[in-house]
């Protein structure tokens, strides 16, 4: 599905990241390389503490690797200053976090409007986007009035509001039941395939891997491809 000529949405080459000091020092990322093309949804699995969140942090310009290259949509994000990285995240990268994704004080619509305002994005259409994740009927609800699955949908809609080319998703189904988990991941896969967004999703939930194009496995900071048992 990907041709070598397209600009990869995410390209990591030989990234290393050490965390902690002294005895607590760990190789969170150990020579990690990864390429994700537009329209692809990639799952990252692995035991707890293996470095999955660290991979997302590095891919999302939230943390700088000690060495290696990270390019998002052609831009070397390791070279960006802090404020430039902030700006870059706003326009090019969407985040969906495991929990506490949403701002307690804001309704579903306002979550999207705030993200659009931050980016100075006047063309965003929060209502349509909420509709596309099946949340039109909950547009005026605040997070405490939504179910876990509904919150994740709103979170996904917010991550998409500024048309990012890369969507980074950390354990989106951790707090959800089976049916909602499938709904959420199906939604992400559809976004990838229809809108050409590249999605990297960290998950512990092996049930939902069937919706992904590739599955990568992380062990002790090393990343390996895993063949889908489909």
């Amino acid at each position, binding site marked *: 599905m990907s041709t070598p000529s397209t600009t990869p949405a995410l390209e990591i080459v030989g990234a290393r990241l050490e965390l902690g000091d002294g005895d607590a020092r760990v190789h969170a990322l150990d020579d990690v390389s990864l390429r994700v093309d537009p329209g692809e949804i990639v799952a990252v699995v692995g035991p707890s503490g293996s470095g999955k969140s660290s991979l997302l942090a590095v891919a999302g310009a939230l943390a700088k690797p000690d060495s290696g290259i990270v390019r998002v949509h052609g831009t070397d994000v390791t070279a960006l200053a802090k404020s430039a990285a902030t700006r870059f995240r706003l326009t090019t990268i969407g985040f969906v976090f495991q929990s506490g994704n949403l701002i307690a004080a804001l309704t579903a619509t306002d979550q999207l409007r705030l993200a659009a305002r931050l980016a100075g994005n006047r063309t965003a259409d929060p209502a349509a986007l909420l509709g596309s994740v099946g949340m039109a009927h909950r547009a005026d609800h*605040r997070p405490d009035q939504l179910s876990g699955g509904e919150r994740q949908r709103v979170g996904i809609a917010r991550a998409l509001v500024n048309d990012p080319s890369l969507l980074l998703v950390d354990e989106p189904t951790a707090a959800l039941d089976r049916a909602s988990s499938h709904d959420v991941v199906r939604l992400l896969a559809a976004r990838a395939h229809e809108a050409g967004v590249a999605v990297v999703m960290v998950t512990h939930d092996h049930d939902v891997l069937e919706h992904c194009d590739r599955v990568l496995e992380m062990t002790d900071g090393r990343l390996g491809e895993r063949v889908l048992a489909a």
Partner: protein
Amino acid sequence: MFLGLRELRFARGRFTLMGVVIALVAVLVVLLSGLSAGLVNDGVSGLKAMRVMSFAFDKGTITDNAFTRSVVDDEQLATWSAAPGVRAAEPLGVSIVNGTTDAGRQVDLTLFGVEPDGFLSPAVSSGARSAGPGEIVVSQTAASAGLALGTKVTLDRSGVELTVVGFTAAQATFGHVDVAYLPIDTWRLIASGSAQAGAPTPQQIGALHYPYSSVIAVQAGDDATLDTARTDTAAGTMSMTRTEAFNASPGYQAETMTLTMIRAFLYAICALVVGAFFTVWTIQRTHEIAVLRAVGASTSYLLRDGLAQSLVLLLGFTVLGVAAGVGMGALMPDGMPFSLEPVPVALASIVTVVLGLGGAGVAILRVTRVEPVTALGGHR
């Protein structure tokens, strides 16, 4: 302030609680401001009304209660009158006396002995200026003590009888006692202790040799050539400007210092309480702030939003508190020394808001310490 306003609405319970504290501080600040203005007026309005540059006290007079302690003689007065750069210098006699009205009411009066036609002689709103011996012009506030035109006041011990012939145009009190202006000659007669019971007569005054007064009131000329220090040395006096001299009136320094200290504490409490509130508020939202920063909110956006939020809170509730304070001020009983003046009240409100904002600002700076990377992972 997209986020800040919505948070105010969302967490209105918490913000209202904080706001009520701010409003109460504002009420107290207003009441204190009214009280201190009232006390100042009560303490020194008699001096405030005088068109005087400075007062010369006898050298070595203790500052506290200096007006009633100081004694200057006519020689010192003459030195001042003749000094270059002095437009006019006049004697002022100050003493605090007790008396009884002809209706049998006890009154306290501060006697201000002044030259009847001099610059210290006050404008009157009713009646006449005091000219003859035994005629007094009293502060309009003395009406509540039972004084009226024609009332005779008999001074305790000496039995000297004074008659109210006029009321001053402005409030004139000194050391919380109503001022009675009388001719300096009559004042000297009373101060010398040689006055006989009954109304003072021109004969008694003519026979008196008592060349003293309390202080010398000085008006400087326009050419600014007056060398106060030199004249003080020459005359054996020490000068205080009119405002410095406020401290020399009874209780003034102690009262204003106490009130200033209470006010400073209130401001500090306001800043600290608001700071503590916003510290807790910011810490509660650490994860949200991390999410916002990860999504791409800049530090300056978060700071501006937070400051705007605290400003709305502070302004809103300070205005409420000031309004309540002014309302309560209007209900104060007449006898209470309370006077609300727009400038001090406005200043006090602004200081409340600014210091509150300072406290909030320090707390809100915390957002810069929230690392966006903490939004990742299974926090919470």
